[in-house]
């Protein structure tokens, strides 16, 4: 005989505004095994929780049913409260009267109340069959893998390393620094990007807790939270990292010209070169797709090897695979810039003087292709008129619906830099839809731009044309003056948005990190859990989760690091017991559960039973998310989810249909 307490929450007016809570309480009184029924405005509040705790002690309750908002909101809270009162927390049942009743049936209060009664009846039926469960502890590795060496990865790595964790920082490119190292200045302070970034990059190399692996990618991830086994593939540089001193004599000797990716293909470098101006580590790398010796093998070229005084060139260098055991993973793989050639009508890719914002950044940077002078690509002269065009590839159902968040601020910065670098006579215009200057100091930055006689046109052009001399012209209608303006420009800069990496599908598959509708990596909850994925132990930092600026990236990176520290610091973690469990006597080893599990949480192990070798399923508790797919697919009923056995679920169904059956199946 169980002793059940039923508590109905008003949730302010959220529930009580639609559902007649008193009627529900009256109804619950009549259910078998229910010893006490109460209602209160906010069950999750301190007095609400205390009400339940006092009743547990005074009335010897052994099952608690709370009819309130979604369990995703406060199930943890209530479990803790129940545990504090000395009752096993898993003997609590949450009935959702908000999302499933009052919010769904706002305009039908009578029917809503009837539904609420039915749901409470179902909850009580299930509560009778709940079993006490215990959390289990598992030891964890106090080390973290950080994937991506941009500012997000760098910040997270430093925070983790400072907290005493071992960090593996893996970066695909030959140098860390990412997008931020491509920037000239940063908004809204106009801090020199390299000046604030490079000290952190150097800190990474100096930190004893950080193992930096550049020119490397993660190729395999196995295991579960606290106990991940990762394989990292380090591609050969064909240069001995111990010997190279970064003098760049090899680059001067190399005859093969290659487009410089770091400079967005605006300049050329050589097949052997240092990746970027402030590269960390400062070691040369050979591009195997272009190097004559590597492509044609035999004694071809080798001029770099001849020139290198440190004898650092090694054409025989091999790929290396490094295995690491880590407790958690931070994904910080960044984003790409929208390929503006997809908006054919704007002429990017066809007209040399139509460039993208990231190309402008390289041109403006002192270590870039023009030594920091703003010059037009076609004839290398300073422009007399520059027009910036916003929202290229963003806020557009044809390409990406989202707002790229940084486009407005980046353009304001570039417009201000153009004014400062060229002259007060250059005509600078920004064509925009909205000017989004949302952050600290951002609108003040917008005012600064206007103070510098940068003009803002309220409207976007439909298409851009090129005159025979390479100058650009187009029509744009301005909302403010109500005039159709014909604009002539020497340089047009397109505000291309940030987009998910083209290889994010790979990352998503490797780390089982879902993606949201916009293509970026999906956070566990957009409001309350923005720093982690749905996979336990895998965290998110930076633009890979959604386009964002540097302050937000750094904040998120430190946050993700803190989350990882929080998870792993004690050296062990507690696992929720609502997982799948296998009854070995019923398991036939058919492997259906293994094939269907989306979290690779089931292992098939051979066992010897009565002298015969049989296969049996075993659940890796730490990976299991309790989704229930295995349980519904299992043909023998061998695998079940704790607290969600067939009996526990079907009793609710029977309770739901109770009244209908009584009324003759209406």
């Amino acid at each position, binding site marked *: 005989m169980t002793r059940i307490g039923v508590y109905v929450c008003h949730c302010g007016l959220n529930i009580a505004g639609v559902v007649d809570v008193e009627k529900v309480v009256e109804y619950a009184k009549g259910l078998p095994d229910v010893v006490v029924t109460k209602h209160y405005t906010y069950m999750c509040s301190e007095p609400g929780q205390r009400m339940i705790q006092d009743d547990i002690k005074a009335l010897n309750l052994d099952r608690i049913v709370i009819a309130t908002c979604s369990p995703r909101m406060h199930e943890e809270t209530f479990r803790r409260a129940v545990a504090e009162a000395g009752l096993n927390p898993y003997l609590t049942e949450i009935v959702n009267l908000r999302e499933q009743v009052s919010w769904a049936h706002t305009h039908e209060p009578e029917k809503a109340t009837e539904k609420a009664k039915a749901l409470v009846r179902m909850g009580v039926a299930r509560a009778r069959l709940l079993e006490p469960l215990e959390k289990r502890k598992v030891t964890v590795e106090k080390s973290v893998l950080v994937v991506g060496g941009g500012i997000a990865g760098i910040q997270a790595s430093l925070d983790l390393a400072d907290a005493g964790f071992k960090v593996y920082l893996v970066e695909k490119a030959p140098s860390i620094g990412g997008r931020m190292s491509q920037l000239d200045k940063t908004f809204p302070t106009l801090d020199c990007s390299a000046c604030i970034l490079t000290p952190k990059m150097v800190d990474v190399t100096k930190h004893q807790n950080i193992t930096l692996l550049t020119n490397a990618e993660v190729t395999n991830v196995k295991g579960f939270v606290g106990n991940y086994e990762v394989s990292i593939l380090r591609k050969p540089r064909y240069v001995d990292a111990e010997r190279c001193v970064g003098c760049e004599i090899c680059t001067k000797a190399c005859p093969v010209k290659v487009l410089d990716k770091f400079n967005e293909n605006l300049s050329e470098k050589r097949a052997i070169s240092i990746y970027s101006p402030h590269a960390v580590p400062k070691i040369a790398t050979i591009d195997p797709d272009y190097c004559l010796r590597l492509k044609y093998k035999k004694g071809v070229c080798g001029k770099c090897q001849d020139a290198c005084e440190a004898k650092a060139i090694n054409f025989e260098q091999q790929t290396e695979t490094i295995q690491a055991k880590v407790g958690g993973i931070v994904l910080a793989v960044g984003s790409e810039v929208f390929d503006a050639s997809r908006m054919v009508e704007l002429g990017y890719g066809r007209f040399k003087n139509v460039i993208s914002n990231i190309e402008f950044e390289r041109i403006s940077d002192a270590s870039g292709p023009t030594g920091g002078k703003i010059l037009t690509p076609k004839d290398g002269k300073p422009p007399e008129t520059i027009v910036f065009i916003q929202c290229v590839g963003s*806020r*557009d159902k044809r390409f990406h619906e989202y707002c790229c968040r940084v486009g407005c601020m980046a353009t304001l910065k570039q417009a201000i830099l153009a004014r400062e670098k060229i002259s007060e006579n250059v005509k600078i215009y920004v064509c925009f*839809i*909205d000017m989004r200057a949302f952050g600290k100091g951002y609108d003040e930055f917008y005012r600064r731009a206007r103070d510098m006689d940068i003009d803002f046109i309220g*409207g976007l*052009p*439909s298409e851009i044309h090129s005159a025979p001399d390479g100058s650009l012209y187009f029509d744009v*209608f301005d909302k403010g003056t109500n005039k*159709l303006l014909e604009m002539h420009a020497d340089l047009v800069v397109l505000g291309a948005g940030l987009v998910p990496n083209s290889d994010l599908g790979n990352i998503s598959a490797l780390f089982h990190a879902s993606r949201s509708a916009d293509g970026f990596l999906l956070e566990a909850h957009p409001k309350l859990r923005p720093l982690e994925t749905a996979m336990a132990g895998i965290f998110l930092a930076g633009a890979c989760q959604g386009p964002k600026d540097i302050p937000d990236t750094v904040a998120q990176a430190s946050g993700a690091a803190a989350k990882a520290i929080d998870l792993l610091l004690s050296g062990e973690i507690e696992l929720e017991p609502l997982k799948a469990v296998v009854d070995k006597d019923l398991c036939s080893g058919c492997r259906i559960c293994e094939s269907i599990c989306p979290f690779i949480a089931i292992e098939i192990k051979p066992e010897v039973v009565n002298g015969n070798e049989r296969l049996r399923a075993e659940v890796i508790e730490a990976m299991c998310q309790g989704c229930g797919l295995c349980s519904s697919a299992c043909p023998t009923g061998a695998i079940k989810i704790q607290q969600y056995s067939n009996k526990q679920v079907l009793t609710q169904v029977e309770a739901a249909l109770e009244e209908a059956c009584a009324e003759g199946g209406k």
Partner: protein
Amino acid sequence: MLREGSELSLVDLMSMAKPNLESREKILAKLRGRELVNCFQCIKCTSGCTALKLLELKPHEIIKLVNLGFVDELPSSDIIWTCVTCLKCVQRCPQKASPYHVIMALRNLAVEREAKVPEGYLKAVSQILETGLAETAQKVVTRKMETVDRECLKLPKIISPKVGFQAVFMKTMEEK
């Protein structure tokens, strides 16, 4: 979606016109989707509008007027007949608000409300009822000043639709 009976508390102080939400709903009902309401005034349509320079057609303005409910001034205006139907605005709009389709819907409303409709369109209707085609057969004068028609060019005769066609055609015109 605006509920019945609610009125935007707006008045156009130049004309003292108030929004007419019923007319707005009429236009929305004629459109395939509700993307009209997604327009965030990027002005691309107007910037690229073929009819802007010559006839001052501003598609973004028409979309905004309809969206706010200032529909009734449009069917009687000449501006809705200036659209060239080049479809550039449909092609380039980032929100698929399609000013062209809104303008066609306004033209339909103009016909329904018996506002001034360019003669040619109404002539096309009566011509179709008569022969099935919107144009009458012509004779063409060649560069060498010969006059020719279908028959002397040995082209197949034009066969008009059978009698039943007119009745059904008239029926479809009752769909508003």
